[in-house]
């Protein structure tokens, strides 16, 4: 490097121009991406803050106005229920594919988890519509929406659990086995606690994904102008992303304002979780 820097005249002008413009172009790409990111965020935040007020947070939707309390509650209930369903199975799948990572079942699970991440959310939503709403006859309901969301979060939870467990040192496992612990004790008593912060981070990221989903809920959860009535099936439930999609298309300023407020709530929530998760992961990475 220094030898080249010491003899710059030996490099032909054309090569230097190509090099400089190459770096400039790549820098421009990064700048463009950052500008677009700032643009999106500023549109969401500026318009969202203008539309957000106490009434929006405390009243329910009425026609094309009112508030978003029903949607906020619905999003929390739907995503919470989805997590309750997805965490046990996702963590189990993650444990299996990390602790028995060379078995063919583990390889299968890992591979299918990666494939399931890539299945479009509308396909999962339509499956929910066909299987749960129609075949099981649940109609638009919390159960149908939450199960669709749970299927979407499963692979995220599985893969983050697996990666978290892989980072647990094998010495720890050896030490536990040599003290006479059985497989169950080693996994639940030693490995899982050691990996818990990373697993929780993964679960939070899965929560962020399900809060931001729209397509799988449109034909499973439906929409309701009222608060959730406590029924698992046969009664539709509201959620924030529906408010964004529907209310921005309406000709009323009050409806558009609700869409901006909903967008701010969803984006803010998703960003906060992602930033928190990043801090946790970064701190753990530096500590190792």
């Amino acid at each position, binding site marked *: 490097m220094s030898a080249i820097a010491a003899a710059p005249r030996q490099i032909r002008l054309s090569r230097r121009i190509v090099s400089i413009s*190459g770096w400039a172009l790549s820098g421009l790409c990064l700048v463009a991406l950052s500008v677009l990111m700032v643009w999106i965020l500023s549109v969401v935040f500026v318009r969202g803050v203008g539309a957000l007020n106490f009434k929006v947070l405390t009243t329910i939707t009425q026609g094309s106005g009112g508030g978003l309390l029903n949607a906020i509650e619905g999003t929390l209930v739907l995503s919470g229920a989805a997590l309750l369903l997805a965490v046990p199975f996702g963590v189990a799948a993650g444990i299996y594919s990390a602790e028995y990572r060379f078995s063919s079942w583990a390889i299968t699970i890992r591979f299918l988890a990666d494939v399931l991440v890539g299945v479009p959310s509308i*396909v999962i939503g339509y499956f929910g519509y066909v299987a749960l709403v129609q075949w099981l006859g649940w109609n638009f309901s919390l159960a149908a929406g939450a199960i669709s969301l749970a299927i979407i979060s499963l692979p995220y939870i599985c893969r983050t659990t697996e990666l978290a467990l892989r980072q647990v040192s094998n010495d720890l496992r050896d030490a536990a086995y040599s003290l006479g612990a059985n497989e169950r004790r080693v996994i639940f008593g030693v490995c899982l606690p050691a990996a818990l912060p990373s697993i929780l981070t993964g679960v939070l990221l899965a929560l962020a994904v399900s809060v931001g989903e729209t397509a799988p809920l449109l034909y499973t959860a439906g929409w309701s102008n009222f608060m959730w009535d406590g029924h698992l099936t046969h009664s539709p439930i509201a959620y924030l992303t529906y408010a964004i999609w529907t209310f921005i298309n309406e000709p009323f300023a009050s409806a558009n304002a609700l869409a901006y407020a909903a967008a701010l709530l969803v*984006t803010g929530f998703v960003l906060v979780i992602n930033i928190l998760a990043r801090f946790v992961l970064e701190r753990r990475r530096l500590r190792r």
Partner: protein
Amino acid sequence: MKFRAWLAIVAGILPLALIAIVAFLAIYSWPAMHFNGFGFVTRDTWRLGNLYANPVVVHGTQIPRGATYGILFLIVGTLLSTAIALLIALPLGVGAAIFLAEVIPDALRTWISFFVELLMAIPSVVFGLWGYVVVIPFLGQHLYPALAHTLGRVIPIFGEPSGSGYGLLTAGVVLSLMIVPIIAATLRDALVSQPSSLREAALGLGATRFEALWKVMLPGTRKTLIGATFLALGRALGETMAVLMVSGNALNILPHRIYDPISTMAAFIVSQLDSALQDPTGLAVRSLAEIAFVLAIISIIVNALARLLLLMWNSNQRSVMV
């Protein structure tokens, strides 16, 4: 041993979910597949038929009189918007990855990468909102007319009329933003983990730093880039909400200019279910399920290919979860 067996069963819910999705869609759409035949993907007319007349029986299937289900225009719309998205996202992502990996110092890299990759976390419907409120007026009123006036004189597909802003190019642009972090993040990781001896060897032979990157480091990450492109492709093919809000939701027409409205398979399922439910024979809803089935199979193939490529080529590297 018993513990392991239990764990294996509980873990099996995940593969089971994937199988259930494919199986349910296949079984549910079977009557539609039987009726539509292979023409489903080669016809460009989606017509629900006369929903108020008595249904007629054709080839043993009850259908509304005059019903035809063809999705060629959706396949074309999906492929074209995805292709445009990749054409924009690939250079943008590669450029950003190069700058992040080679120029930005280590201490800053983590956080700048994180900021750019946050694009991946923004919900699809928020991209749609941004596209609908800001991008469409900007493109439709300023950029597209200008583009049609200049480039349009040379290349016919860019020619007048430049449309309203809803359409193929807008969908491609918004999609490209959603997939560019996948490419940028994966390639940046691959570039950073390239052995520095490669670069030193190239510099020692008299290459400039950029030549070392372009001719030595970047070709070494080619396989990762291909894998990441497949992942991005899979994401773009199935993207729903953002496309739904900016594509113009064309029905039964093929785009002739790059500004023309289109629809994609994923967006069409959302936009058409309400009208499909009016069909008393239920064949329209089953045909939508057939679209979902086709989309599922395509995305499974694309993603499986991507993972297999990434797995075979660099098994020691962490692939980015998307």
